[in-house]
């Protein structure tokens, strides 16, 4: 999957904005948004928030979890845990990139948040590499991927499933002649 497509899915997440205009409820196919009152917070999908922001029609409040203190705790937990911990959002990485990209001045401590999220991502990716390695060496029929986010899963696709497919192919190729030898011997 193209990373753009993962981001596309992430853009469906809601985010709080403070509009600079006033307008009634708008009925989208995916659901209704608004009403918009200038200066009063309301929730809209990220794709819309980014667009309104670009047109300077709103200020982006950001996500509740976009808080340096909270994220440091998340990061520490991730560091100490053997497993993948649950992220505050399934699209924490792409949401951070999109929202901080378009509205760094709106979100307090934007730079700190960006750095912590990047660290968090690095910790998880290195954990992911270790577990992929361990999994490939095991003979397990399946892998648990609980709490991995779509962007992270996308990073091990197609290499991991592909490697497993190839391993299976080699194993079935190897087993066939052996079977026939056995038959010949008997």
């Amino acid at each position, binding site marked *: 999957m193209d990373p753009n*497509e993962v981001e*596309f899915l992430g853009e469906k997440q809601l985010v709080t904005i403070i509009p600079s205009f006033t307008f009634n409820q708008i009925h989208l196919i995916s659901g209704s948004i608004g009403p918009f009152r200038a200066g009063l917070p309301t929730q809209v999908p990220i*794709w819309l928030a*980014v667009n309104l922001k670009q047109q300077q029609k709103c200020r982006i409040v950001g996500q509740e979890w976009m808080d340096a203190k909270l994220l440091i705790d998340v990061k520490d937990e991730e560091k100490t845990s053997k497993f993948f911990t649950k992220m505050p959002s399934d699209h924490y990485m792409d949401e951070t990139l999109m929202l901080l990209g378009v509205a760094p001045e709106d979100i307090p401590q934007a730079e700190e948040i960006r750095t912590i999220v990047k660290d968090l991502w690095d910790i998880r990716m290195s954990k992911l590499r270790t577990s992929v390695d361990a999994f490939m060496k095991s003979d397990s029929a399946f892998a648990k991927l609980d709490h991995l986010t779509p962007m992270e899963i996308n990073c091990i696709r197609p290499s991991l499933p592909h490697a497993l497919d190839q391993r299976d192919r080699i194993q079935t190729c190897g087993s066939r002649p052996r079977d026939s030898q056995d038959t010949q011997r008997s």
Partner: protein
Amino acid sequence: MFGEKALELIKELERSAEGIPPFNDDGIRQVLEEMRILCQANFDDIENPTTDPPNYSSVRVRHMAISRNKRCILAYLYNRLQKIRQMRWEFGSILPPEIKSLLSEPEVQWFTSYSKALATYMRSIGDNYGLNLATDVTPPKSLYIEVRCLVDYGKLDLEDGEVIFLKKNSQYLLPRAECEGLVRQGVLQHVTS
């Protein structure tokens, strides 16, 4: 060696992974000729064997060589079709002349038929609502860019119905898709801060 020319066809495609090499009429003809000769040799060996019993081993080897040649030719044609198919998605239903000249006549016909089948299918989508699947290949991104107008251009109709007047030396925030053309024409200049 039997099958060498056939393999050469495959290698030729392999070498031009990006584009499509000119249709190798001569190569195909030579492989077909080899198949004919091998087939004739087998026929002779069976009809008028020089040994008793007839030498079935050589018959079998020739038979396999013919099969391999067939496989290579079809693989050559099929893989070319994959490239030609891709062109329908990239260029639309009219082939650029420089590409058309690389194809054989039956391939050009195949392109036309493929295009037609695809168009029929796309028209039928959504109870004949019709949908052009060759467009919107990446997720939509609404990107606004800051541009400076370099000339007194005048009226510009935006897709959302808004109308703006572009004046020399003024700056505007516009959807990228809608001002790309004007940037290329030198009417607008992308301002990078």
